[in-house]
Every structure is written in structure tokens, then in C-alpha cells.
């Protein structure tokens, strides 16, 4: 009797849920930095108003390495609680099996994005995620300080270090004991892989693992580039930089305590916000180049995408949400409010976008020759490759062996890891 009542009750609630299927309850995970979550909420409110669905944000740590571990675990367990994932550009090959194919759903809009980004999110003909924004880092510099010391915007790393040292010494002598020359992402995590790839590539040292799968990292130019970075720690960069991720470096920078910073464009809008000590006092430039053969300015390709879990209980509405977050309308808002680079070429000529973030006019070119991390050739082993690389670099930066020694060890480890093929 009781059981029957229970069953009836259950059935009734199931019918109710099915009856109101138009108003789905969705969950999206995001580990965005700065005020990214607040921005996402504002966009989701629009989506809710348009569709009647309810979307909850599940916040995550901002370190992409931390997020990946958690997502991988959830997806392997077939977690139905999360419908939409915000994914890093490097994850597509590793998580492709667990996400829905969006080719069909996105067939009208895919053409409006940069083809290279759509390609990076396509695995075996399956579109794994819709691009939400792309990322190519910048050298943030204090124009007021460069003017004061009559210095040009540095074009090479050595020039950058010399300028940083001089201004830092000058400002410290003038009473600001907290002043540093350069902050970047030096913690042992994915961010260091991005930073170090730029040093190596800009010095003509290749890109760790080349597109054809050859391990190229053990070369003198790469070693010189990493040794150069190691010489910054404790001189122009604080020792604590060895533990900085994006937000810690932005913390130092935004308090006005660094001449230069390597960071992603999101720090542009935040640096110009009202509570920032450097508001209106800084600008951005392409990252400096190294020296030697093949040296050029190099920017690691970043960027975030939106993917739909194949375990979502409401895939149709979840796909709508993914398409909405990648739409031109949201990307434009993003470019204006968050200074995130759009993945839609047309937006780089949009007057509103350029008024809010004038630097973007130059960024299309930088983005077009950005260096991808070797996630495509190393496939499912990318995370381990990246971890081995950042460990070798972090060891060098901490003074634990020279770059040449650590890169030699790295090459041996990578060869082992590669085995017969990636």
C-alpha cells in the first residue's frame, strides 16, 4: 500500500518534470579568473530570460591543471550534474570521447569563427566544443614609467630585463621598496608551460614537440632562453614568482609594483577598472623576441571553449547554451567588458570593441601566428608532456640544475614517454 503510494508519487513527479521540459535546469562549470564569473552570470541571465531555462554556475579553481583533473574524473564517472563545461583549448583531444558532437548544431555558425580554432576543437571529424574566446598573451608595460626613464617599449627579452632593472632600481631608490621589474606565471603548472614555450620559441628553440611528433626541446637556443628566464628570478622578478599563477602576478602588477608583466588580455580590462592603481598608466605590446637564429616574438595560443557533456540530461537545451556562449553577441560583450579576444574575425573591426580595447586591432595578427602547445601531436599524453616540461623549467628557475642539464633529462623522459609513437 505504502509502496504503491510512493510509486504513484514518483510517477507523478516524473510526469511533472517531463511536462516542464522546456524549462531545463542546467549547470555550467567555469574556473574563470578576475571578475569572469560575474560576467558569465550576467550573460546567463540573458539566456535565462530568452529561453526560460535556469542555469547554475559551479565555480572551479582557476588553475587549468586543477580543473582538468576534476573534469576528467567527473566525466569518467558519467556525472550527470554538469551539462556544460568551459574547456581549455588543449583539452579537445583528451576529452573528445566524453563530449557531444556539435558539428550539426553549429553548422550555421562554425564558418564565422577563425578556421584554425574550429580545427583545434575538431577531433576525428567531431566538433567537440564551440569557441568562446581565444587568448594570446601580451607584454603589459607601464607607459608612465617608461616615459619617466625615457625608455622605448622593449623588443627583445634582454632589453626588457635591462629596462626593468634600471626602472626598478630607480623606483626603489626613490622610496618604493616594493617595486619589481617583471612578473609572469612561474608556478609549476600549465601556465608555466605557456610562458616557457614563448621564451623557447621566441629564441628560435622550437616548440618542445614539433607538429610531426619529433622531440626538439634539447637544443642550445632553448637552454639559453630558459637560463635567461632563470636569471630574472631574484633580480627583476620576486622569488615568490616561482609560485605565481595568473592572478598572483596580476595582484603585484595591479598594485603598481611591477614595470612589466606577461599575462593574458583579460588583465587589460581589470587593470583599467576604477580600483586599479595602474588605471590609464599602462599599455600592452607583443611579447619580446629572443636573439639568435629564428628569433621572433612568440605568443602561446590559449583560449576557452564551451563543450556539452554527453551525460547531460537535457542535451538539447545544453547545446543551445553552448551556442549562445559562443555567439557573436556574447563574444562582443566579452571583448568589451573582459577584454577577451573574440574568435570571430569580424569583431576585430567592430567600433565598440576597439573603443573599449584599442589593442585588439593589433592582436588579430598576433593571434594568427600564435604558437600552439604540442597537444595535437602528443594527443592523450599531452598532460604528461606538459608536466615534464614545466617541471624541468621550474627546476631550472629554482636554481636546481642548469637548463642544459634539465633539458637533457627532459628529452630522455619524453623519448621514454613517446615510446614507438605518441
Amino acid at each position, binding site marked *: 500500500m505504502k509502496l504503491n503510494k510512493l510509486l504513484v508519487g514518483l510517477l507523478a513527479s516524473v510526469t511533472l518534470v517531463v511536462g516542464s521540459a522546456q524549462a531545463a535546469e542546467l549547470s555550467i562549470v567555469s574556473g574563470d579568473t578576475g571578475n569572469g564569473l560575474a560576467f558569465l552570470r550576467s550573460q546567463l541571465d540573458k539566456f535565462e530570460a530568452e529561453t526560460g531555462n535556469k542555469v547554475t554556475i559551479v565555480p572551479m579553481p582557476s588553475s587549468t591543471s586543477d580543473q582538468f583533473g576534476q573534469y576528467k574524473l567527473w566525466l569518467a564517472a558519467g556525472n550527470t550534474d554538469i551539462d556544460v563545461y568551459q574547456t581549455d583549448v588543449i583539452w579537445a583531444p583528451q576529452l573528445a570521447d566524453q563530449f557531444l558532437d556539435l558539428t550539426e548544431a553549429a553548422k550555421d555558425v562554425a564558418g564565422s569563427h577563425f578556421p584554425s580554432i574550429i580545427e583545434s576543437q575538431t577531433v576525428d571529424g567531431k566538433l567537440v566544443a564551440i569557441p568562446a574566446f581565444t587568448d594570446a598573451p601580451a607584454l603589459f608595460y607601464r607607459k608612465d614609467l617608461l616615459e619617466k626613464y625615457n625608455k622605448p617599449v622593449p623588443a627583445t627579452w634582454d632589453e626588457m630585463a635591462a629596462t626593468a632593472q634600471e626602472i626598478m632600481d630607480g623606483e626603489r631608490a626613490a622610496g618604493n621598496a616594493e617595486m619589481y621589474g617583471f612578473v609572469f606565471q612561474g608556478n609549476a603548472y600549465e601556465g608555466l608551460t605557456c610562458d616557457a614555450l614563448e621564451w623557447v620559441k621566441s629564441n628560435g628553440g622550437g616548440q618542445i614537440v614539433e607538429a610531426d611528433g619529433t622531440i626538439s626541446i634539447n637544443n642550445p637556443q632553448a637552454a639559453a632562453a630558459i637560463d635567461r628566464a632563470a636569471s630574472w628570478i631574484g633580480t627583476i622578478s620576486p622569488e615568490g*614568482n616561482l609560485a605565481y599563477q595568473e592572478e598572483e602576478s596580476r595582484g*603585484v602588477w595591479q598594485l603598481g609594483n611591477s614595470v612589466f608583466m606577461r599575462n593574458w588580455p583579460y588583465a587589460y580590462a581589470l587593470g583599467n577598472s576604477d580600483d586599479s592603481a595602474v588605471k590609464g598608466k599602462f599599455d600592452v605590446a607583443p611579447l619580446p623576441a629572443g636573439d639568435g637564429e629564428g628569433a621572433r616574438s612568440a605568443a602561446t595560443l590559449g583560449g576557452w571553449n564551451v563543450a556539452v557533456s554527453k551525460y547531460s540530461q537535457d542535451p538539447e537545451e545544453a547545446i543551445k547554451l553552448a551556442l549562445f556562449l559562443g555567439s557573436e553577441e556574447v563574444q562582443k560583450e566579452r571583448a568589451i567588458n573582459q577584454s577577451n579576444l573574440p574568435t570571430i574575425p569580424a569583431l576585430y573591426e567592430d567600433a565598440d570593441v576597439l573603443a573599449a580595447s584599442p589593442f585588439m586591432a593589433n592582436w588579430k595578427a598576433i593571434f594568427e601566428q600564435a604558437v600552439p602547445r604540442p597537444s595535437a601531436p602528443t594527443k592523450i599524453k599531452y598532460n604528461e608532456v606538459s608536466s615534464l616540461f614545466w617541471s624541468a623549467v621550474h627546476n631550472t628557475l629554482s636554481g636546481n640544475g642548469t637548463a642544459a642539464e634539465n633539458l637533457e633529462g627532459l628529452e630522455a623522459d619524453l623519448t621514454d614517454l613517446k615510446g614507438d609513437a605518441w
Partner: protein
Amino acid sequence: MATEAMAAPGAVTGGKIKSELMQQRVRAARWFLLPMLIALAVVAGWPLLRSIYFSFTDASLNNIDGAEWVGFSNYLRVQVLDSGAVRYRGLLVDPSWWNAVWNTLRFAVVSVSLEAVLGMLVALVLNAEFKGRGIVRAAILIPWAIPTIVSAKMWSWMLNDQFGILNDLGLRLGLLSQKVAWTATADTAMTAVLIVDIWKTTPFMALLILAGLQMVPKDIYEAAEIDGVHPVKQFFRITLPLVRPALMVAIIFRLLDALRIFDLIYVLTPNSSATKTMSVLARENLFDFDKFAYGSAMSTLLFLIIALLTILYIWLGKVRFDGGDR
């Protein structure tokens, strides 16, 4: 002791009625133990066996059910190269694993020794009669009551090189000549972890030792006092031997805890080889690297190492858990 009586009901002298009563009690005890044993089997035994099983397979997170048996090759395998050279591969010859084992052991030994000494001091103070003892006893437990992940994050801000309060205080008081990046560099990262761990778990140690101290009869001290025994000698000849059982058990709890340290290190320090412990490395392989089987092998070895150390400790320290250690 009641447990001994229960274990050997036949040894109890007396009439038939008494031994029947004992048997009844033993039967009842078994039923009461059953739910706990089932719970243990489900939440601890089964996962443990699964981990051990996976360590002998080629399981990956995306393909757990399709795992195939590969024997010991996750632990050790021999590769013969084309040139004829023979080399060994696998967890048992993986330098990063042994580095993590070494980090963990170093951490466990240093932290547990310091905690035992400090815990003893705190317990002696708390054992003395003074006004407001109740409040102090409650207050000292606060670090232990805060979830580790919260205190780790809290300390990571306090230890922060630019905004941290410790650097600020040190500079103002003239103890530091410049800001120290506590968690960033290899030399200080382990020290930072130790400081936080000691801060957090000394109260636990103190509490267990305090419980032991309160069992010590007061009249022994009175007798020693009358005989004019120096307080230091009193401590080493009376207090220490009498609280030894409690101390040994407290140390074993802490040792088990310290050997599986994960959260503090994960939150507090960069993911570098200077501080990576066995648990951190196992997690990284299990989830980040798509080497589920290899990570399972690490978890299995971690389990074996902890079991081995515990057995050694119990054996060498002659620890008895019934309090009969005299």
C-alpha cells in the same frame, strides 16, 4: 580486561550460568560488530581491492571496464632495446616515485617528532591547575577543528610573499631583512608545509597525551615530592613511562595521517618535485595523466609502505592497544 574476558570465555572461572552469560555477550557483540564490518568492507575493503586489481591491469579512466590483466608490468618490466641493451621500467625503478617516497618520509618523521614534543609540552601545561583552563583547552583545539583545505588556503595567503601578513610582521619587527617567498622556493616550501602541519595537528597530539596524563595517579608525585625528587627527574622517571602508551598510540595515528599527506601540499606549494608526496603523485597519474593503472600501482605501494611502517612501529615500539603497556 573486558575484551580479554570476551575473547576467552572458557577461562572465566565460576558456574555454568556465568559462562552462558559470557557466551551470550560474545554472540551479541558479534552482531553489534557486523554493521561496522560491512561498512568497512564496502567503503574501505572493496576500493582497496579494486585499486590493487587495477594496478595489475592496463586500465585508463576512459576505459575502466575494458581493463586487461598485464601482470607486474606496472611495477617492473624489462625492456630489451634494438641495440641489445637491457633496461628496467616501471614504478619500482621510477625516480620520481622514490623522490616522492623520500619527501613523504622526511615530512612524516620531522612533523610527527616535532608534534610529539610540542604536544607533550602543551599537554603538561594544560594538565596543571590554573584559572580558565577549560577555555584554554577548548581554544587550543581550534586549529584541529578547521578543515585542512581551509587552513591551507588561509596559510597560503598568510605566507604570500607580497601580501602575506607573516612577511609584513617580520619586516616591521625587524626579524626579516626582505620579503621571503615561503612557499615558492624549494628550500622553504617544505618548511612552510611543516609549520602549517605542526600548527594544525599539535592540538590533536596534546589532547591524546593529556588524556594519558590524567590517568597518572597523583599520589606517585606526592611520594616523589616527599622524597625530594627533582621535577625534571619526576618527568622522565614517572610521567613519561606512565603516559608512554597514550603517546605511542597518538604517534601512530599521526604517522598514518602524515604518510598520506595530500591537501596541505597540494594547496600550499607549487607542484614541484621538491614537495611532491606519494599521494600527490598518485593523484596526478590517476586523473591528470590518463595512467590509471600506474596511479593504482602507486596507491597500492603507498598502502604497503604505510602498512609496513605501522607494523614495524608497533613491533619495535612494543605498542599494545589495550593500555597494558607497562
